[in-house]
């Protein structure tokens, strides 16, 4: 098997007001179906290795996780090397019902924005209220990052993890870098 390669070969930017790092490769499975269906929930939880998230939330433990994408869609995350087995198991469990599960690992890019100014950097690019009282670890948001669709959540305070299409990985990294450029502190969330 060939070595998995991320879109930007693990690019990193440490000179700005927050650290931008390309993550991955990460195993990602898009699952669409009836999220109230017991069999589907059970299969999703088995594939994601964490409990089922509430609407608008994401449950994560290291590389394992499940994100609530829409009323009929989940994003299941796992170590890259496990994605084929987990997908096969998931599809076998869902064979009797009406559901769709696809490996999207190589169609996505992920980024980490870390540091005390991470909220400011994200706030410059997304129409999301990122006040610490409003957006907290565990919440999940699909939105835009400047001109591209992206989703993000906070695995912990001062860390944002972003998922976007691989085809716009360069744009995502560059726009994050600009939003985090040295001297661009806003001081809105940290007075």
């Amino acid at each position, binding site marked *: 098997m060939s070595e998995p390669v991320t879109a930007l070969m693990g690019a990193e930017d440490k000179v700005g007001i927050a650290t931008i790092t390309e993550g991955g490769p990460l195993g990602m499975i898009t699952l669409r179906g009836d999220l109230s269906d017991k069999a589907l929930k059970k299969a999703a939880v088995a594939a994601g290795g964490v409990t089922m998230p509430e*609407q*608008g939330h994401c449950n994560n433990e290291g590389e394992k996780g499940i994100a609530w*994408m*829409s*009323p009929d*869609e989940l994003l299941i995350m796992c170590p890259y090397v496990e994605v084929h087995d987990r997908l096969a198991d998931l599809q076998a469990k869902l064979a009797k019902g009406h559901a769709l599960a696809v490996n999207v690992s190589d169609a996505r890019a992920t980024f980490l924005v870390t540091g005390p100014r991470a909220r400011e950097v994200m706030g410059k690019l997304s*129409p*999301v209220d990122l006040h610490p009282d409003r957006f907290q670890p565990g919440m999940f*948001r*699909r*939105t*835009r990052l400047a001109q591209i*669709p992206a989703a993000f959540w906070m695995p912990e305070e001062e860390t944002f993890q972003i998922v976007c299409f691989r085809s716009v990985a360069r744009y995502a990294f560059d726009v994050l870098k600009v939003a985090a450029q040295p001297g661009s502190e806003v001081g809105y969330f940290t007075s």
Partner: protein
Amino acid sequence: MLIIHCPNCGVTAEETEFHAHGEAHLKRFGPGSADDEFESYLFMRRNPKGVHFERWRHQYGCGKWFHVARDTVTLEVFGSYSAQTTEPPEEILQAIRDRRPEWELT
């Protein structure tokens, strides 16, 4: 700038996360209909000055469709409601009447 609420995923955000897709509650005239009916279905829109019902999509978010009632003059948003309906629900009509007592659904 409009603040829009998506009834599908519960997110409230400014309009750039969404996309407007024109007048809502059109009656479709398809194959077999009269030419003038088909023409008006395709091209003729109310374009009202005031209360308006529109189809919106949560473009950058959950990707789902829904309806929005708003005022095209003041940009006030009266509310959002399910895409799975052919007419505005009573609570939306009430919200409009509370703010526009003169207004009537036509």
